[in-house]
């Protein structure tokens, strides 16, 4: 039955996280935006301790794992992450956790690898997992990466440069974390040669050479990682090292995007909602009512704009919930994941830009967080698949085209 009511446990979690966002994230939001490379260790310790009470469920093997997971895991995550991002999207991204790297291990790792790399998140000091794909010369065209992995005795030897690695600094130099690096074992094989390799923290030959200065989500570190004859054990490769004619391996890692895109969309929603909530509050204070039932010709420009913002955000939210629900039901959700990511990235960009516009000089000022939310929002239109790439994926699916047929 069509139903939009969140289950009580999701609501409970959401409300708890909302309190946390309000009391622990908002008060330090501006500070860590301004001091972009400093880290709020107290906040991290608190979040880390809380996460150990709900450890990452590694499950048995990859196939059985789904049975062990609650039936609303993806939807529950989306709701929680919206709340955390409502607090502060940059801080949310920088919370110690397995991250996208952990997601890759979950998706493509053997039971042994999952234990080796993920068990650490249940204990000890805060740790971070990261994923390094993008290079100076390629972002959207991930099949064109030039980082190489060459087999040498008992090791893979990695060479190359990765940029835009979220939490890369924390993962490889500031904690006992790891980074999953995409590299090619055979450039001539194109996509089929691309594999994912887990590189443990402090592995010799891997260096963080810089941290980006960004428009927004400044509390999240974005690292440049250089790999120079970086040697890792043979069994650090995720999936098979074979270069097959088919692109199974590549597709396998790409498939993780089906689960991560809705999560990024959920994060975007939180930022959009922060702006919407603030705008609504400001209007209420000014005595401006949004008259939903009024005829169109009576609506003020402000009412129309606000209603458009609300509808736009809710549309993005429902598309995101749908993608998550499908994942929870075990349904293939590539199309829906790309739809919600494309929509959410665009919608929150529009909503936050409009909010600054509506609030005039106050919206523009660094006295309040609204301008920061606009800066934070924009990246959601870009990372984890740009809006244009997601439109391309949607188009391929609705047209039944391969990437060769529609590029």
């Amino acid at each position: 039955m069509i139903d939009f009511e969140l289950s009580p446990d999701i609501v409970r979690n959401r409300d708890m996280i909302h309190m946390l966002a309000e009391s622990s994230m908002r008060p330090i939001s501006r500070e860590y935006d301004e001091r972009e490379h400093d880290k709020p260790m107290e906040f991290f310790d608190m979040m880390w301790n809380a996460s150990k009470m709900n450890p990452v469920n590694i499950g048995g093997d990859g196939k059985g794992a789904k049975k062990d997971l609650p039936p609303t895991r993806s939807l529950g995550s989306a709701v929680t992450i919206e709340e955390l991002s409502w607090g502060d999207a940059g801080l949310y991204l920088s919370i110690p956790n397995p991250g996208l790297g952990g997601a890759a291990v979950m998706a493509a790792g053997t039971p042994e690898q999952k234990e080796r790399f993920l068990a650490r998140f249940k204990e000890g000091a805060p740790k971070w997992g990261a994923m390094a794909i993008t290079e100076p010369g390629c972002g959207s065209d991930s099949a064109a990466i030039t980082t190489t992995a060459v087999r040498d005795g008992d090791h893979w030897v990695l060479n190359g440069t990765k940029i835009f690695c979220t939490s890369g600094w924390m993962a490889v130099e500031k904690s006992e974390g790891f980074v999953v690096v995409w590299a090619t074992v055979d450039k001539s094989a194109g996509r089929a040669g691309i594999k994912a390799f887990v590189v443990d923290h402090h592995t010799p030959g891997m260096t963080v050479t810089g941290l980006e200065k960004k428009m927004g989500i400044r509390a999240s570190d974005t690292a440049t990682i250089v790999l120079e004859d970086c040697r890792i054990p043979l069994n650090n490769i995720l999936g098979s090292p074979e270069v097959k004619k088919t692109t199974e391996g590549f597709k396998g890692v790409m498939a993780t995007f089906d689960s991560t895109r809705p999560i990024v969309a959920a994060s975007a929603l939180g930022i959009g909602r922060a702006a919407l909530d603030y705008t609504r509050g400001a209007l209420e204070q000014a005595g401006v009512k949004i008259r939903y039932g009024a005829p169109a010709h009576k609506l003020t420009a402000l009412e129309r704009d606000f209603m458009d913002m609300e509808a736009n955000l809710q549309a993005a939210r429902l598309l995101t919930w749908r993608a998550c629900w499908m994942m929870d039901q075990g349904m293939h959700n590539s199309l829906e994941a790309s739809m919600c990511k494309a929509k959410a990235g665009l919608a929150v960009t529009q909503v936050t830009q409009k909010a600054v516009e509506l609030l005039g000089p106050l919206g523009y000022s660094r006295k309040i967080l609204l301008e920061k939310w606009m800066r934070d929002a924009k990246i959601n239109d870009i990372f984890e698949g740009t809006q244009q790439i997601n439109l391309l994926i949607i188009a391929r699916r609705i047209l039944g085209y391969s990437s060769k047929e529609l590029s």
Partner: protein
Amino acid sequence: MVSFQPSEEQQLIRDTVASFAAEQIRPAAHEADETGAVPSALVQQAWELGLVQSTIPEAFGGAGEAISAVSGGLVAEELAWGDLSIAMHLLAPRLLLYPVILFGTPEQQQQILPAFGSPDFRAATAAVMEPRFGFDLAELGTTARRKNGTYTITGNKCFVPLGGSAEQILAYARDEDGRVGAYLINKGAAGVARVEREQNMGLKALETDEIDFSDCAVPAAARIAGDFPALMNRSRVALAAMAVGVARAAFEYARDYAKDRKAFGVAIAQKQAIAFMLAEMATEIDAARLLTWEAAWVIDRGQDATREAVLAQRYAANMVMKVTDNAVQVLGGHGYIREHPVELWARNGRGFATFEGMAIV
């Protein structure tokens, strides 16, 4: 618990209506638009599906199904996918039936409902909108003056589906206390005149009429009182659902055309400008549908759905204009020619920003 899956029963009804729309409604759409008429055989066939009568209580000869905005929305989308004019024609009797079922007294229900158990289509409708720029449901221009046991209705109504041919019209008017009431008026009553059958940009196959009420006397027993703002939310959801249906029709047609049509050596669907347009259309159709479902769900829970319904309707009305316009664009010059249905869908699509109270779930 959150779910995006209609119930099995809803899927069955939706599939039945979708088949009917594909096999019977769509093939008739072009001719209906060109001639300005819906074939009566088709109307009768749809009547036999029982979509309109299903929610009449068993005591009055109906199937006694619960009125569900969610189910109604699914049906409305499929019918409108077939053709908007035909969909509105088929569902018009609900405009009178639903207020009677929801708000009517037992006497009123006994008086009105059994006639809709007839084996033949029974035309009925509601007169809501008024032909003036300042039209406002909360401040109707049409008035009802009470004198002894009678109300006299005076005013102008427009966009009344089947207004000229309906056996009964439910006319909305504002009484002297400023409250909205709905008045049951029979065909041929004194003081009711059809000014003209309207000529519209789209919806050409649907008879819509401008009706003039001039001291039309209605017995007090024929006045229906109820939560009309809530009723209007049902109308908003119905129209939003129909907008989704029209948009989906346009998108599918444009998509299929783009895969077939070649230019510069490839199908035009293989060019990003076209592919991106289609991708946005598909996403926005799904988005509008979900907003509409949510509003319908709030209604079915018995809660105030004004915010959700208004937002869904606005979103859907904007969306369908953009999608149908893009569909014309994808077909290029051929999209401009009436041999293809996309220009019809664009003419119909524009209407959603102007309709109120012309459909209900």
